């Protein structure tokens, strides 16, 4: 243990946080600390300062607003798991939150932190991609801009977020009644496990014809990604065995997994195809 001596700025409210962010562009934003404290302990980072967002009520709430649910960036996973609107409209997000670490992490880790940490293995992003989630990025200079999560990541641990911006909230459209939703995480064990492959899925069906397809993936590329080729293989088609095989085959062109400590590229390609096939087959009833 060697404690970071970096100062911690504690904003009084969101406006104050944005002013601090503009004044200290090299400072790291601190939310639940479940990633940052691990990095500090491993001497992997050495920020000159922190801006502590944990205590800001403006970043906390979960609001059901007409056609979408707005989740404050510092909402923790337990809050998501327990929230009635999230449970009613976004069950795969609840499932994803329940696979993050275990209770102690779910009580502290935040959705905004998961997104900003930008790990390709983050548990919530595949579901958020499948749900067409949009991030509210805020800065003192330019106010609010809305960025789809699908456009947020530019490379490994890189995002479009400017040095004076922070994630204030995540807007998640409520799925249509007919949408089929899915979450599947493949890891070594149920709890305390970083994923080998994660799939978040949303399929809109008209009869047995797919009219919209969203497939969000984790741990299969340098960032959380959608799989546009596999999605395109589904849209406009009846969900037949040949359509399913075409989507699984197309997926190979979408994902670029690597060998790492948790798994191999070959395993990930094979398992990604299998969990996609398994979900699609289950929808054929």
């Amino acid at each position: 243990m060697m404690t970071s001596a970096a100062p911690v700025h504690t904003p009084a409210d969101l406006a104050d946080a944005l002013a601090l962010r503009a004044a200290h562009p090299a400072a790291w934003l601190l939310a639940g600390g479940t990633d940052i404290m691990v990095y500090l302990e491993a001497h992997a980072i050495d920020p000159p300062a922190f801006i502590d967002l944990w205590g800001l009520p403006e970043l906390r709430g979960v609001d059901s607003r007409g056609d979408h649910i707005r989740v404050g960036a510092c909402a923790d996973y337990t809050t998501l798991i327990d929230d009635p609107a999230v449970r009613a409209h976004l069950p795969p997000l609840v499932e994803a939150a329940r696979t993050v670490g275990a209770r102690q992490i779910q009580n502290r880790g935040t959705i905004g932190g998961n997104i900003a940490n930008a790990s390709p293995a983050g548990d919530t992003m595949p579901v958020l991609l499948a749900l067409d989630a949009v991030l509210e990025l805020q800065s003192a200079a330019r106010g609010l801009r809305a960025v789809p999560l699908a456009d947020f990541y530019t490379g490994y641990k890189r995002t479009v977020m400017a040095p004076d911006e922070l994630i204030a909230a995540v807007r998640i459209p409520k799925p249509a009644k007919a949408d089929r939703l899915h979450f599947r995480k493949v890891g070594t064990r149920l709890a305390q496990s970083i994923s080998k492959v994660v799939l978040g899925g949303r399929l809109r069906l008209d009869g047995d014809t797919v009219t919209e397809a969203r497939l969000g993936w984790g741990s299969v590329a340098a960032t959380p990604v959608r799989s546009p080729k596999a999605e395109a293989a589904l849209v406009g088609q009846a969900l037949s065995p040949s359509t399913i095989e075409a989507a699984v085959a197309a997926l190979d062109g979408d994902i670029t997994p690597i060998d790492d400590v948790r798994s191999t590229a070959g395993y990930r390609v094979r398992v990604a195809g299998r969990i996609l096939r398994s979900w699609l087959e289950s929808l054929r009833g």
Partner: protein
Amino acid sequence: MKIQFELNGAPTAVEATPMARLLDVLREDLRLTGTKEGCGEGECGACTVLIDGRAINSCLVPVVQVRGAKVQTVEGLARDGRLHPVQQAFVDHGGAQCGICTPGFVVAAAELLARDPQPDAITIREALAGNLCRCTGYQKIIDSVARTLSGDEEAAR
């Protein structure tokens, strides 16, 4: 900087580096060594404490974030010289072996029992999934939590 919070029911002030781990402040500065360090990276749960009633890994909390909060450690679970019911259950049913993981399990179980006084086995396992034990194989720990007496049963002992 001066950090003020409530610790096991008593107002507490401590001089600490803002990013110091709550775990270290509890053990080194406040001499409450019941909270253990296992992995130091949020995997093992040995350092679990309650912050505003929620089970949290104290190795992952910079002490600056507990200003104004209510922190409860394993030392704060007993009341009026009586063990917390889940502590008594660990004693009665052999829930502890070497003991290093025990404070974390007890605190995590106390959080569970506060929100769900009669959890089933699956709920217990899920609530304790963030706590690792390298001795017992978990069954006696799960049994201890499952057989923790309610307040009324405890009073009738």
